[in-house]
């Protein structure tokens, strides 16, 4: 732990050092200007204090050179701040591909989290140190926000959307996470702890709890049959709907000519609003499943579709554009 009066939280993720460095940079610039202006104001106040009741100041109306300097210099400095922030943000909004995917569902006023193996946790999250972790988040009711100050990350959890965030814990320990977007009565109680463990401890912890039947891939596979998805989305591409083999993270050619990467948000949208983005060569036949699936069902279906990523892609009738074929 730090001293009695800490000025910054612990640096426990890959983002923390760069965010803190940027913080120091911007603070230094701001401090310079704040101190300079304050000194000038205070100095003028004493130096030019009125001496006789009728005294007036020296009429100076302005100076173009000075105006130019203090237009341009702050602008250039501001642009460096923008650039520094942009670099971190772009990195943050583009998760790497080799992530450990955790599903997060926020509801008034608790967090439900699910490990890739299907193990569920409530207001607790266990992750291995040094591994890229991606949170795929949905809300069952209002807008929430998953925030881990020690990792310097947060992201809103919006109903009707998937939002993702990622980080790589760099230090084992227990760290607070909070709900940062006001969500009603017990907003302040909607938090918990992230436990960052050594990878071996993490595997031991995972295997110590049996949750095979809750595995989202298995549950999603069941739903895929129950909801009759499997009658059209045949794996060999001979059905009325595109084969889903290899579709996740692949490039999909749409009917309007554009191409899109099949990420979590696209898969979700295709389940809930199937006609929004039709795959080229297919008819808009699929009914929407909005209102018939819970957020957890959608997460399970998505997990199942993702598990097909490594399956062989058929030559025709695939949703995904094959590398080299185009």
């Amino acid at each position: 732990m730090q001293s009695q009066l800490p000025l910054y939280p612990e640096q426990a993720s890959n983002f923390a050092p760069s965010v803190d460095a940027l913080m120091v940079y911007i603070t230094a610039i701001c401090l310079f200007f704040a101190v300079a202006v304050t000194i000038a104001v205070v100095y003028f106040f004493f130096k030019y204090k009125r001496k006789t009741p009728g005294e007036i100041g020296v009429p100076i109306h302005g100076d173009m050179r000075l105006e130019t300097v203090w237009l341009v210099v702050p602008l250039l400095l501001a642009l460096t701040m923008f650039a520094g922030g942009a670099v971190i943000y772009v990195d943050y909004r583009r998760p790497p591909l080799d992530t450990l995917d955790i599903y997060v569902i926020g509801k008034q006023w608790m967090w439900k989290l699910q490990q890739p193996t299907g193990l569920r946790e409530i207001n607790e999250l266990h992750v291995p140190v040094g591994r890229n972790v991606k949170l795929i988040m949905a809300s069952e009711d209002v807008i929430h926000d998953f925030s881990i100050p020690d990792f310097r990350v947060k992201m809103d959890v919006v109903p009707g959307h998937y939002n993702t965030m990622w980080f790589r814990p760099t230090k084992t320990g227990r760290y607070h996470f909070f709900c940062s977007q006001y969500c009603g009565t017990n907003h302040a109680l909607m938090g918990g702890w992230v436990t960052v463990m050594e990878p071996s401890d993490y595997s031991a912890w995972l295997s110590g709890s049996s949750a095979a039947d809750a595995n989202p891939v298995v549950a999603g596979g069941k739903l895929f049959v129950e909801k009759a998805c499997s009658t059209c989305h045949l794996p060999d591409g001979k059905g009325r709907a595109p084969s889903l083999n290899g579709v996740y993270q692949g490039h999909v050619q749409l009917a309007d000519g554009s191409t899109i990467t099949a990420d979590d948000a696209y898969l979700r949208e295709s389940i809930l609003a199937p006609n929004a983005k039709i795959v080229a060569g297919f008819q808009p036949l699929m009914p929407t499943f909005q209102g018939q699936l819970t957020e957890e069902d959608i997460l399970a279906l998505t997990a199942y579709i993702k598990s097909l990523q490594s399956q062989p892609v058929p030559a025709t009738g695939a949703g995904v554009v094959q590398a080299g074929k185009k």
Partner: protein
Amino acid sequence: MSDTESEHHIVSPKVYLTIFAALMVCTFLTVKAAEVDLNAYFNGLNIIVALVIATFKASLVVLFFMHGKYSPKRTKLVIVCSVFWLAIMLFMTMSDYVTRPWK
């Protein structure tokens, strides 16, 4: 005090009737155009045609019925501002939604 010409411009009824006729023709055109599947040529063409005609009609009303054409510069600036700010709202908000799927 007054930085504009303030005299009243009188538009003749002939001009009004011409504009009225043009508006009627445009209304007819826009209904007819909507019944043709223009989207077959270019996706979204129906909407574009409908909105272009609507904008043209609105411009006629502003310029002639509302005397926008004969108004002082200040009034013209006010009109341009209203359109500009509406555009900011529409375009900058839609820019968020349109660019979301981009990677």
